[in-house]
């Protein structure tokens, strides 16, 4: 395995995708909403409303929801004021699964541009004539798809942490983010989800002809994220530290299966048989 070839392919793919506006716009806009606009609104608006109304913030509507949370969460929230509970519960727990949209989306975008985009732009044939093995080609494209997804997600996590801590400082009186859940989420589940987005795009790429088709289909994995969010909000499957490990494990298992199929699909002989 020649890693300099793999890097060359990955660098080229990243340079190309950085010129694709259809890919770049969601990669910039979505994180800005997720890590700046939403948390600021969630943290600052209740403070502003309660100040304007002259009332103390009440958790009246959240009571029933909080009662369904696992003991670890209720313990973590014990002794906090209603406004502190709101900030910690929403930005520290409820928001966590929504974060998984970022790696899924980014990996789907880059992988779709990298695999299907090459076909669509008729550049694949030239690449397949290069002195690289099938494994080096696919690995280069995997690196190009997963690395930016991880970089974007981890950078967003840092910004999110700063926004949540700073905006919440008047309420919390201390820096409290991240909670324990975020570490397995960022280091275990996020790479698994990024790989899921990429692996889906690899498989879909052999069946569709355009970048947009591939992106839309592979990003439909967002249903999984929405299911996790629903579980989080209803307390049915709360993303605690052990659950995060299990979810990550399940996603990695799916990734392994998808990649096995994807790598078998991505052979020169097969691709040229279809060109």
């Amino acid at each position, binding site marked *: 395995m*020649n890693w*300099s*070839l793999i890097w*060359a*392919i990955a660098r*080229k793919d990243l*340079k*190309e995708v950085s*010129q*694709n506006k259809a890919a770049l716009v969601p990669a910039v806009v979505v994180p800005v909403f997720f890590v700046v606009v939403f948390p600021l609104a969630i943290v600052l608006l209740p403070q502003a409303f309660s100040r304007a109304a002259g009332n103390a913030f009440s958790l009246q509507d959240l009571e029933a929801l909080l009662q369904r949370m696992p003991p670890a969460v209720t313990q973590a929230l014990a002794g906090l004021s209603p406004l502190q509970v709101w900030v910690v519960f929403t930005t520290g727990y409820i928001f966590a699964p929504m974060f998984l949209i970022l790696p899924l989306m980014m990996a789907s975008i880059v992988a779709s541009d990298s695999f299907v985009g090459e076909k669509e*732009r*008729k*550049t*694949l*044939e*030239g*690449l*397949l*004539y*290069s*002195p*690289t*093995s099938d494994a080096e080609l696919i690995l280069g494209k995997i690196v190009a798809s997963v690395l930016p997804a991880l970089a974007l997600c981890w950078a967003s996590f840092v910004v999110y942490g700063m926004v949540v801590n700073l905006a919440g400082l008047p309420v919390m009186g201390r820096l409290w983010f991240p909670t324990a859940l975020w570490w397995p989420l960022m280091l275990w589940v996020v790479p698994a989800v990024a790989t899921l987005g990429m692996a889906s795009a690899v498989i879909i790429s052999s069946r569709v002809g355009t970048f947009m088709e591939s992106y839309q289909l592979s990003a439909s994995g967002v249903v999984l994220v929405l299911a996790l969010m629903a579980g989080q909000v209803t307390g049915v499957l709360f993303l605690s530290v052990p659950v995060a490990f299990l979810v990550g494990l399940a996603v990695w298992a799916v990734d392994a299966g998808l990649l096995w199929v994807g790598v078998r699909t991505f052979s*020169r*002989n097969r691709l*040229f*048989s279809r060109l």
Partner: protein
Amino acid sequence: MAVIEISGLSRAFGPVQAVRNLTFELNEGEVFGVLGPNGAGKTTTVRLLNGVLKPDAGRMRVLGLDPESQGKEVRRQTGVLTETPSLYERLSARENLRFSGALYGLGLAELEARVNAQLDFFELGPRADDKVGGFSKGMKQRLALARALLHGPKVIFLDEPTAGLDPEAAHQVTQLIEQLSHEAGRTVFLCTHNLDEAQRLCDRVAVLRQGGLLALGSLAELGRTLWRGTWVEIDVQTALAVGLRRDLTRQPGVQRVEGEATRLVVQVSHEVDIPDLVGWLAAQGARLMRVMPRRHTLEEIYFELQEQPEGRPA
């Protein structure tokens, strides 16, 4: 020395037999043309020889390597100009070449030197840092050719290098190929529809139809195989009298006389019969203006072959 050897090579795509029992060899330094209509198997042969497609049957060797099991090593020593330029239009010409060079493992200093040399040779220097998307078709084809040659391949495959180009750009690309083909030791495998281009560039040609080999050889060899004997064109100042023309057909070595008025087209058994024929005509008082042995064009050869019934290769 044979650079490419193919024996009994076959490949089908479902019910379509793309390449059928092909056998031929290419010698070092040769410009070898592969001619045939769409679907004749030209591109499939290029793909098989570069190890990007596996054959159903047959044996191949490229530079002594087996493309099926040593595809990566074969591709390291070959360059391919595909039918569509396969360039990254969002990247600049320089970036395209740098990427290609990196895939061939060229070191940074050597890569930069070669990239600059290719850009200069193909007259792309002034647009080197512009995005390829803004290039004309001719410029894209020159850049694709520069990319195919960047790593100094011993064998270069050119798949329809002038297809879709305007006459000026096509002429420019043909000239470049002619220049490149004269570089010592480089073997060129040229797939083309363009018979003038093939006639101008190729030492030998293979004519394919429906994946099978119809004919193989130099222009002269193919002409001799298809039309027995030698044809000579003779221009005379005034038309021959009927009797003299009849006597001409009876001269030793003369097989047939065609042509009208002042242009005679005579078929003789051998080229050596021509001086005697010319001497006899002069002795009969014919005023000869021009005597020219007739060379069959590749176009004549190609269409004659395509009209032959299947299973009768020349």
